[in-house]
């Protein structure tokens, strides 16, 4: 399952990253807004759901080699964060769903894909 599959199936909007980056295979999903916690728990290739939209999100995603950041509830992502994400090659998606809905739907899709 790639980032693009998730984006299309869940109707997310792409906020940062190139088309090519959406082809990356994802290894799981993690949801947390404490950056230290996310830093320690995120695995490479994970989708990370967080309501934070500041620059540190890009640093944490980049350092942990997360596949993609998904910002829920249509929360606006700061311009400088999008610029930094593009620079660091971190894909970002935006969704109107809640973090709980996103987690449930992504886990369901991942399980179905086996």
């Amino acid at each position, binding site marked *: 399952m790639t980032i693009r599959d998730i984006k299309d199936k869940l109707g997310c909007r792409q906020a940062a990253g190139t088309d090519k980056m959406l082809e990356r295979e994802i290894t799981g999903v993690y949801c947390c*807004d*404490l*950056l*230290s*916690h996310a*830093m*320690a728990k995120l695995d*490479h290739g994970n989708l990370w759901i*967080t309501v*934070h939209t*500041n*620059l*540190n*999100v890009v*640093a*944490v995603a*980049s*350092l*942990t080699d997360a596949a993609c950041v998904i910002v829920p509830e249509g929360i606006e992502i700061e311009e*400088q964060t999008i610029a*930094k994400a593009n620079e*660091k090659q971190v894909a970002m998606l935006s969704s109107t769903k809640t973090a709980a809905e996103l987690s449930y739907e992504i886990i369901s899709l991942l399980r179905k894909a086996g």
Partner: protein
Amino acid sequence: MGQVIIRDFDIPADDFLAAGEASSAVRKLLSQLGVAPDRIKRTAIAMYEAEINAVIHGHGGKAHVEIRGDKITIVISDKGPGIEDLELAMQEGYSTAPDSIREMGFGAGMGLPNIKKHADELVINTEKGKGTAVTITVYF
């Protein structure tokens, strides 16, 4: 790895735009050197937490990195206020970070515990009013 690699970085004060740049550069370097991914992750987590601490609490500082043989040693030093009660600061959940920092997702009191968990060796030298130096060693 027979060679010794030394890198120095400035950590600007209160600059979240640059926070993580040093850790990011070290991560890339270790990756190029072919260090095992779990060792790189441990190093990156420990260094990033220390770097963020220097930005939040230490008015910025410096990172000195040495890679020699089978280990990396990172010294993050600042000229901030020092840590008043180190034993307390090492406890998970204890934080002196202001609300503005908490709103960014930091200040959960996990920084130092996270460093301890991911470093193989951790030495903290701190003096009230003088600053703090955090020395992190990770073996490959």
